[in-house]
């Protein structure tokens, strides 16, 4: 099988996306070992620098994909 570099990058992004979904689900069922994502977010938002970082990142994901021209 001939894998080009673009496919390797795409597969890596997909694997990280998949890992995110798996851990989100695991967090709901194994809360003794790993707290649910919602609890992690609730606690980290109590620190201002983290709160600002997460909200700014959220805003940028909206602006970047919906408003800005994305250079290729």
């Amino acid at each position, binding site marked *: 099988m001939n894998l*080009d570099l673009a496919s390797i990058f795409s597969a*890596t992004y997909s694997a990280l996306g998949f890992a995110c979904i798996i851990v989100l689900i695991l967090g709901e069922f194994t809360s003794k070992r790993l*707290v649910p994502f919602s609890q992690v*977010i609730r606690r980290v*938002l109590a620190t201002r*620098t983290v709160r*600002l970082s997460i909200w700014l990142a959220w805003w940028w994901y909206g602006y970047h994909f*919906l408003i800005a021209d994305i250079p290729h």
Partner: protein
Amino acid sequence: MAAPAGTRASYRTRTVLHPWLITYSVVAAMQVVRGDKGDLVFFFSCVAVLLLSEYLPDTMPAEFSLPQIAHGGLAWTLRVLLIGLTATLIFEPRHSSVSAFLMVGLVLPVMAIYAWSGPRFDAHERPTNFIRGERFWSTWAVSITLIELLAILLGNLFKNYSSFPTISALLDPMLDVPIIKNAYVLIWLAVGFGLLKARKGE
């Protein structure tokens, strides 16, 4: 007072530099390579805001230290803005100037003031399973950032952007399809509402 076994207090950042400050600095540096002036200004401004948040003295003037306003007028303003934004982003095409005005002129400043308000540090202790979760999500975010950085650096080095695609380059053509764009708008705004809701338990 020492934290009980299996827990860790998190009054202050334990590293020399806050991990988010390092992440935003790396992403800001990436914009120099990318050459996107808008993102360059945005991310360096973010670094400046995070530096202020982290290093302003505890006894700072009252105007820099807002009480939490999660249930006050500003939080409701943000909710109303998000609803107005949903309608605008759904009915307006991508890259519309009306959406840009709403996002830059209203949502960004209101959101920034809202995020600044409230306590500076988490005064609670963190149990082990929380630290484990926090480590996983930090590693995950850093991994995505590093792979994106690698794609940008290699793409610029070899002048071959299609062989080293970023997530933006892969998603951009898909978002030109209206139904995918609208799904993205709804997911993005649901995350925003989720963040608003999460602050209630602060």
